[in-house]
């Protein structure tokens, strides 16, 4: 199972400018599988991504929007992308600055469907 996740993550991290990708457990915010460049703190990123996804999900629920499928946080130095795979797992990717995010987003949505 984890080997399957690793192959999936390697596919993402081969895209230009992608600094890392992870499969994260929503329930506890722990890393299930990761492929990260040196310097990225996987455990912190996983915990914060899961917390963020939970809060956004609560907010979207309260607003009557349903379950969010994709989160995109853009900062001056890069972007954090989170795709909700199912009720248990998140697919998280970290992209550097000036990276075309369309392909990454498409791949993440495709992969999150495979995780379902």
């Amino acid at each position, binding site marked *: 199972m984890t080997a399957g996740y690793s192959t999936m993550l390697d596919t993402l991290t081969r895209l230009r400018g992608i600094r890392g990708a992870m499969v*994260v*457990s929503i*329930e*506890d*915010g*722990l*890393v299930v599988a990761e492929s990260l460049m040196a310097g990225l*703190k996987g*455990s*912190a990123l*996983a*915990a*914060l991504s*899961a*917390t963020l996804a*939970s809060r956004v999900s609560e907010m979207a629920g309260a607003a009557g929007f349903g379950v969010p499928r994709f989160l995109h946080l853009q900062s001056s130095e890069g972007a954090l992308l989170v795709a909700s795979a199912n009720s248990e797992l998140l697919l998280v990717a970290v992209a550097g600055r000036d990276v075309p995010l369309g392909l990454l987003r498409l791949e993440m949505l495709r992969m999150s469907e495979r995780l379902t």
Partner: protein
Amino acid sequence: MKAIEPWVLGPLGTFVSESQARLALLMTTSGQVVAQHGFAGSLDLMASAALGSGIIASSSELAVQMGWDPFRVVMHHGSRRAHFLSWFDTPRGRWIALVVFSADTKLGLVQVFFDRMVEELVAAAPAVAVQKKEVLAADFERELNASLRSLFGR
């Protein structure tokens, strides 16, 4: 928040605030309380410290029996509350942390902030003043009462 040793307050305060822990307790492996946050009564505090150190001791022994390294973290996730129990090494010896947090809070987040607190405690710990002496019953009671006064201001 109260502590036997004041230098613990900074790192513990940051941890409690960042992790939104309801209760936090730092103790030695023998169950002596070093610092606490959120406990109202001394009885609850002392019982929790004794139970926490007992759980770490028994789970560590269980790991040894299996030929493993001692379990670093013991976690219980309830429907409303979760308990996080972990040991860590400081210049003052091995300590144990017991943290109670809401079930909404992610374990990963608590772990991240906990690791940071341990780093800060290790950095903040003053040089050890070694005082090896025989432990007498009278000293034990006096030290226990002094600890309770520090932790509850009584």
